[in-house]
């Protein structure tokens, strides 16, 4: 509950952070609606998963355009999914457990973002994969 | 451990809350005790409106309002008080608006007003738009707004504390004593709190629960009136109890006069607007006592719907838009509690016990008085339905109760602020709670006896049947016998719940005791008033008798426990009594 002084005026505990998270959840949601659905359509509808080996990925990432699109999707997903998980954790835990799990979520988010970025940036091109 | 506050307010309805605001504004250490959470007080059930001669819709003057109040009360109104009421109605309603009350608005943004029974232009020429309103939840908005302001000012509340006794110092209240605080039962755990105080305001509302069919909440059991009476104070004008014409059949839930204010009809089984035979000028907007009697006469003449005991309230011709905008809540009640669609069907209604004109006698400063000379009882105040100022006389006009709360609640608070200055704190101790503790323990300890509910039900039946809209000597006498019998049986009630945690079984048993006090004084006063005036209609004395009865009754508890009656003159200033026709 929001704390108030005796005189009744507000003493907010967490300024704009929660607002920013709330708002960005919505913005990333809209971005993901396009990106994720398109992505899913490409990798599960247009192409069969069975054919999408490393070579296929390399072919797709042969230009900077796809890499950029996928990186944007990665950024949005990491924010959205991990902040979403934070929400879930904040609902069902409290005290030190909440703190620990929140930190874990942030850490995982960072890790996943780093690994994803690394894969995107350094993915070898098709020739190398094939050899 | 004894607690103390400079001033105490018992009851958190409109009257109590406004008094508390005045005390808080003046910085007096004060507290409000209430057996319900404040927002659950029955003021919140008031629907139709609160009158003030703002003149926002058409020409209006407070003198007209004063006149209507006096005539509506069949000239038993104290005219000095009615003048205060009508004048201060205007400023208190404006003040409420400033506190944030969301009134409906006229197209130019002012407080909207509508018609209400008995309110007229130019001393009775025709209906006038005087009732300020917020849809059909005016009382809800008043209660909420006042409570909100109390929160703003940090008023101290004892929520769910049931006041079970008054403390006195220097003798009983009627005989020179002073009010010195209260004993309150904390409902949560059964602890008795003794709180002493220099000033005590009783604002505990009415006692409609003594009737079978009533618009009143279960909690309206006359606690304040009864406690004052037990401590030697007279109660005034108890014979005048208002029956509202339009209650939901059987349940008594109120369908506000606002419906008729907006143009609804009353119809008998022939589809006739029968009010044209009883009040040709005001028709459905005649005062409540007249409309209730008209309905009973229609029923007696066999013109009830299907020969049964109800007539119709018809809003169909008002159109959906008006119904939804101006009467949303009451049409919802009809749908939920009668399963009827008011857009398309007429609504079965019958009179319902509604409002106590009588109560604790006070002067225009809300100070309780104890005799025909209006001697002030030090430290004791009363306001709202509990009090009898008397601004309602023999019959209250619609909307005037809310005005009463505002005007005299405010006055009570202001008077207490003045009176506590320079007073000493009464010298009472914890021991003062012993008598009531003993009563409560006795009730808790009684192993077996009759259920209190049987007594309450029988009381409700006899009051409804013999002390209702019409009264006769015969019926009243049998009511007297019955109430006395119930009183005897009450000595032996027992309760199932012997615990201390939230024991509503115990408190309800006490409430039946309060109701018995109120009923006993009411019946006695009825028997003695051998005339018909306002809400008191004797079939054996159908005429008003100004020679013998233009006077207030005072009922005191005699030494032998029986009711002793006395009378006190009515204050008449501007308007001489005239026959009351509409």
């Amino acid at each position, binding site marked *: 509950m929001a704390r108030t002084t005796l005189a009744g005026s507000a003493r907010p505990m967490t300024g704009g952070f929660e607002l920013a998270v709330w708002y960005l959840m*919505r913005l990333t*949601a*809209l971005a*993901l*609606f396009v990106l*994720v*659905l398109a992505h*899913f359509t490409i990798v*599960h*509808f*247009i*192409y*069969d*998963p*069975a*054919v*999408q*080996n*490393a*070579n296929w*990925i390399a072919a797709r990432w042969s230009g900077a355009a796809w890499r950029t699109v996928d990186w944007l999707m*990665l950024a949005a*997903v990491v924010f959205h*999914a*991990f902040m*979403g*998980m934070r929400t*879930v954790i904040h609902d069902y835990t409290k005290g030190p457990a909440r703190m620990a799990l929140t930190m874990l979520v942030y850490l*995982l988010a960072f890790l*996943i973002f780093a*690994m*994803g970025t*690394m*894969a995107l940036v*350094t*993915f*070898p091109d098709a020739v190398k*994969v094939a050899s | 451990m004894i607690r103390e506050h400079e001033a105490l307010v018992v009851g958190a309805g409109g009257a109590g809350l406004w008094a508390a605001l005045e005390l808080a504004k003046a910085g007096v250490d004060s507290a409000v005790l209430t057996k319900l959470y404040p927002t659950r007080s029955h003021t919140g059930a008031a629907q139709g409106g609160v009158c003030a001669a703002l003149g926002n819709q058409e020409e209006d003057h407070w003198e007209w309002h004063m006149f209507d109040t006096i005539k509506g009360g069949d000239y038993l109104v104290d005219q000095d008080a009615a003048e205060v009421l009508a004048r201060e109605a205007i400023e208190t309603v404006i003040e409420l608006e400033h506190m944030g009350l969301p009134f409906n608005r006229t197209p130019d943004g002012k407080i909207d007003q509508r018609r209400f029974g008995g309110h007229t232009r130019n001393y009775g020429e025709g209906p006038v738009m005087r009732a300020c309103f917020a849809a059909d939840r005016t009382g809800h908005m008043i209660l909420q707004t006042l409570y909100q302001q109390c929160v703003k000012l940090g008023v101290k509340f004892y929520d769910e504390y049931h006041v079970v006794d008054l403390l006195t110092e220097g003798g009983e209240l009627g005989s020179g004593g002073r009010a010195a605080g209260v004993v309150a039962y904390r409902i949560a755990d059964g602890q008795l709190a003794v709180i002493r105080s220099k000033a005590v305001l009783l604002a505990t509302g009415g006692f409609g629960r003594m009737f079978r069919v009533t618009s009143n909440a279960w909690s309206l059991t006359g606690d304040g009136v009864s406690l004052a009476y037990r401590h030697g104070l007279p109660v005034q004008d108890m014979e005048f109890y208002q029956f509202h014409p339009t209650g939901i059949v059987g349940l008594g839930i109120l369908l506000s006069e606002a419906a008729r204010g907006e143009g609804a009809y009353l119809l008998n089984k022939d589809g006739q607007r029968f009010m044209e035979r009883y009040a040709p000028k005001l028709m459905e907007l005649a005062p409540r006592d007249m409309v209730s009697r008209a309905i009973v006469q229609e029923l007696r003449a066999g013109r009830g719907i299907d020969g049964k005991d109800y007539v119709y309230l018809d809003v169909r011709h008002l159109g959906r838009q008006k119904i939804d905008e101006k009467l949303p809540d009451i049409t919802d009640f009809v749908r939920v509690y009668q399963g009827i669609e008011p857009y398309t069907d007429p609504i079965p209604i019958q009179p319902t016990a509604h409002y106590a004109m009588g109560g604790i006698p006070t002067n225009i400063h809300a100070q309780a008085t104890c005799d025909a000379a209006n001697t002030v009882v030090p430290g004791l105040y009363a306001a709202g339905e509990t009090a009898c100022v008397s601004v309602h006389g023999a019959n209250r006009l619609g909307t005037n109760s809310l005005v009463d709360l505002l005007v005299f609640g405010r006055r009570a608070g202001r008077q207490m602020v003045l009176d506590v200055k320079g007073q000493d704190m009464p010298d009472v101790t914890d021991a003062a709670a012993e008598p009531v503790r003993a009563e409560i323990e006795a009730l808790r300890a009684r192993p077996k006896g009759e259920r209190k509910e049987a007594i309450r039900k029988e009381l409700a039946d006899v009051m409804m049947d013999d002390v209702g809209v019409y009264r006769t000597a015969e019926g009243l006498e049998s009511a007297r016998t019955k109430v006395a019998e119930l009183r005897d049986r009450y000595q032996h009630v027992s309760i199932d719940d012997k615990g201390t945690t939230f024991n509503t079984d115990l408190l309800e048993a006490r409430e039946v005791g309060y109701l018995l006090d109120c009923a006993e004084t009411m019946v006695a006063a009825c028997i003695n008033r051998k005339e018909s005036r306002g809400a008191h209609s004797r079939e054996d004395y159908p005429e008003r008798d100004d020679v013998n009865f233009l006077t207030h009754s005072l009922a005191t508890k005699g030494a032998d426990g029986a009711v002793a009656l006395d009378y006190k003159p009515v204050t008449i200033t501007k308007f001489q009594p005239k026959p009351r026709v509409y």
Partner: protein
Amino acid sequence: MLFRYRGSEGMLAWAFHRISGVAIWAFILLHVLDIWLANVNPPVYNDLLSLYGSPIGRLLETALGAAVLYHALNGVRIVVMDFWPSTTRYHKQLWYANWVVFVVIGIPFVLQIMAPAFGLAAPFSFGG
């Protein structure tokens, strides 16, 4: 409490949204890991792919698709209500509309993904 209370559409919509959100989150963890694997060790990744192509893999894939589709559609419902609060009056209708879209889009996806598991040719072909 959650099981004792008989919520209506709104509560179900939320429960599914939350469950699907967490499920997709779990998959995303896996997914980024496997892409990363494709980067550092392509042959292992290629072996893994056979799992994705197996009948069970396809079933899981369908479930994932359903979760994503539901979460995405209901997510839009939430965002619409957030930005235009008066639409909350039709929140139930919006939810039913979601299900219509879900089924219409979902059927071809299910056919496309599941057909190979039964040894059939994928119904839609894009020359790829």
